[in-house]
């Protein structure tokens, strides 16, 4: 062995190590996630966009001035981003702090709990960004992009994924078992997927229900993605959507610092 000694690196280098760990883990176990993040949305795009879209164009013509395919394609990008954020931040985090305790192993090294958290979230962001690029290309191939603003779609996907991942990592760190995760998926993620104006406009709801829909974080993600693909939208509304998602991501990060440290150190 040569005589290189281990030394603690600066904070920046430390959380990169954790990013790398999450990337390696994904590279070795990616097959399971391909169905939910790639195949499903594409099937949806084909079945709903082309199939239901045909029906829509025969009866109603257009939805909010868009063809049905144009309307739902960005919505599916947003829901996929949500699914990446949710999928990376629940079961795998509970496993890492409770069952396999691999995060405990990580903090026996120079890494601090904050490094593990940043490594995790930066990995989620990376995955959402890459998926966003692939989706944008595919949506383009389906002919559903109409503006150079579409180039922002991968960033929109990243923002959506982080808005879900950051608070969910924080919350998962407080859980003792998986029961709450199952409930959360059934009663929050699935309804959000169905009712966040992904498949039809919010105007389909009676007026008193609309504010409720607008409370759903995914609603803001869908609206942002749709504006990106289409190139239309008011600055005020778009800023509000970005702000909602951004606040969720930042608040989640701050909360997660607290809960992950508490979970790992005590």
């Amino acid at each position: 062995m040569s005589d290189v000694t281990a030394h603690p690196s600066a904070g920046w280098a430390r959380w990169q190590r954790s990013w790398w760990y999450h990337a390696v883990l994904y590279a070795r176990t990616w097959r399971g996630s391909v169905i939910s993040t790639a195949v499903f949305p594409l099937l949806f795009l084909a079945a709903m966009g082309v199939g239901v879209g045909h029906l829509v164009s025969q009866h109603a013509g257009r939805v909010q001035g868009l063809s049905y395919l144009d309307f739902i394609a960005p919505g599916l990008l947003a829901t996929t981003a949500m699914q990446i954020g949710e999928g990376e931040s629940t079961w795998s985090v509970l496993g890492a702090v409770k069952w396999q305790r691999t995060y405990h192993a990580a903090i026996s090294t120079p890494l601090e709990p904050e490094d593990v958290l940043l490594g995790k979230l930066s990995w989620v962001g990376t995955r959402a960004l890459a998926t966003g690029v692939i989706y944008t290309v595919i949506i383009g191939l389906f002919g559903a992009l109409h503006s150079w603003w579409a180039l922002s779609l991968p960033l929109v996907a990243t923002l959506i994924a982080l808005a879900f991942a950051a608070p969910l990592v924080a919350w998962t760190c407080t859980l003792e078992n998986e029961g709450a995760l199952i409930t959360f998926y059934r009663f929050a993620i699935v309804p959000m997927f169905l009712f966040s104006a992904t498949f039809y406009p919010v105007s389909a709801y009676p007026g008193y229900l609309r504010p409720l829909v607008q409370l759903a974080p995914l609603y803001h993600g869908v609206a942002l993605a749709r504006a990106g693909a289409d190139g239309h939208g008011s600055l005020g509304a778009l800023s509000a959507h970005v702000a909602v998602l951004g606040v969720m991501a930042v608040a989640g990060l701050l909360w997660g610092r607290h809960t992950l440290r508490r979970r790992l150190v005590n």
Partner: protein
Amino acid sequence: MSVEDLVVEARGLVKRFGAFEAVHGIDVEVRRGESFGFLGPNGAGKTSTMRMISAVSTPSQGTLRILGLDPATHGPTIRARLGVVPQEDTLELELSVRVNLEIYGRYFDLPWSEVKERTRELLEFVQLSERANSKVDDLSGGMKRRLTIARALINRPELLILDEPTTGLDPQARHLLWDRLYRLKREGVTLIITTHYMDEAEQLCDRLVVMDQGSIVAQGAPSELIEQHSTREVVELRFAQDEHEPLRASLEGFASRVEVLPDRILLYVNDGDEVVGQLGRAGVNPASTLVRRSSLEDVFLRLTGRTLVE
């Protein structure tokens, strides 16, 4: 002794979890190059102490220096020089043996070439070279334990902390691990070990402390502890009758201490053979007699009791 020779120096160390106090103000000094044991029943506070000494958990009170540094301000610097083998293996089951070591090596910011080289050498050291590409999930318990030890050595630590390193292993795997720990000690690595196995403590530890309910109840070299807290020999008597308690009075004159157990009676004495002769002459006729040397286990049970602690 100079300060640099103390790898761990703890004064009045306390750990509280809410209202519960797991460690009640213990003093510990571990010297460079020695092999130091923490013994105690479940719930004695060993693991809480280990986690503080690993610079992971912060003491609630007291002072702690590890490698001469304060863990509250130098956590990453200290941990860069420690190796930790936790009670549970905490390996990444989905990844291969090799990748588990590589990830850990990268946590220490070692260059790639160095990580590759050390991974190869450590797998050889723990006899896992042939399993380098196996998924960890497919390894036996003993192999996982060896891999966890290899992982703890990737940064070439000055201090190796092992929390129950051989619990659940078969005798072959235990002896292989002991052998590896001896070698590390010969190379100058300081070892801190917790264990439930008294034979392991006698084999491995130069000095040890016995903890019970968060406090240190005895400390010293294994031989010193036996000398202080037990007699040189123990006579184990078994009788045909089931009821042993009535025999106690007739035996008390022969030993410095008599312990009545459901299946046998223990006499703590200095010369076992002589006492057996005396018993024969006095007309005490046990069904079987065994004379043995006092062990650390006798000391441990004397200090922490035979009652099961859950």
